[in-house]
C-alpha cells in the first residue's frame, strides 16, 4: 500500500497549541536537554576522579555565569520531566484520562516544576535548608 504524501496528524502548521500538546512536546524536549546535561554530570565526576586540579577547574566552570545558567536549565528540565514522567506512568497504569484530569494534571506539573526549582535554588543560595 502506498501512503504517498498524506498529511500526518496532527498537522502542526494548522494545529492550535493546547496545554496537552505543548506539555507533550516539552517532555520530549526536556528529555533531550537532560541527555545533554549528563555531559556536565560526567565531567564533574571524572574531574573529581582525576584529582584536585581537574576538580577545581570543574567547580570553577560550574560556578561561572555560564555554568550557573546551564545548571538552572538542568534543574528546570529535570523537575519538569520528573513531574510529567510521573503523569506518564499514571497514564500507563490506566489512570487519569478524563479531559479535566489531564488539564489539571498538566497545570499541576507546571506548578510542581516551578515550586521545586524555586526550592532547590533557594536552598542552593542558603535562603532555606543547609546549603551555603
Amino acid at each position, binding site marked *: 500500500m502506498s501512503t504517498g504524501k498524506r498529511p500526518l496528524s496532527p498537522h502542526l502548521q494548522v494545529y492550535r497549541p493546547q496545554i496537552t500538546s505543548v506539555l507533550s512536546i516539552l517532555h520530549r524536549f526536556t528529555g533531550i536537554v537532560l*541527555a545533554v546535561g*549528563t555531559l556536565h554530570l*560526567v565531567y564533574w565526576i571524572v574531574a*573529581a*576522579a582525576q584529582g584536585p586540579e581537574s*576538580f577545581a577547574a570543574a567547580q570553577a566552570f560550574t560556578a561561572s555565569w555560564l555554568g550557573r545558567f546551564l545548571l538552572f536549565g538542568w534543574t528546570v528540565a*529535570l523537575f519538569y520531566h520528573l513531574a510529567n514522567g510521573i503523569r506518564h506512568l499514571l497514564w500507563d497504569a490506566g489512570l487519569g484520562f478524563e479531559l479535566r484530569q489531564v488539564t489539571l494534571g498538566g497545570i499541576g506539573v507546571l506548578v510542581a516544576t516551578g515550586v521545586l526549582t524555586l526550592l532547590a535554588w533557594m536552598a542552593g543560595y542558603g535562603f532555606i535548608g543547609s*546549603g551555603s
Partner: protein
Amino acid sequence: MSLRSPLGRVRGLGSAKEGTAHWWAQRVTAIALVPLALWFVASILSLIGADYATTTAWIGMPVPAVLLILLLTATFYHAQLGLQVVLEDYVHNEGLKLAAILLVKFACLVLGLAAVFGVLKIAFQG
C-alpha cells in the same frame, strides 16, 4: 476483530520485532529515576561549598557510591532508549537513522562507563 495473524499474536513481537521490551525498560528506569534523581539533587545541594576532600570522601562512601552508580546506570539506559525513539520519529533516511541510533548508544555507554569508573576509582583509592 484482531488484524493480527494467529502466529503474530502468539509471538507477540509486533512490527518492531521486539515486543514490549523497549517500552517496559523505559518505564522501569523511569520509576527508578524518580527517587534517585530527587536524592541526587538533595545531595548536590548539601555539597555546595564543599572542598575536594569532602566531596570525594562523600562520593566514595558506600551508600552514595552505590546510589550514584545506580543513578548513572538508570539515567544512561533510559536516555539511550528515549533518544532512540526520538531519532526513529524524526530521521527518515534508514542508513542515517541506524548510524544516529548507534552513535547515541555508543556515546551513552562510553559516558556511563567513564562516570561509573570515576565513582569506583574515588571509592577505592580516594
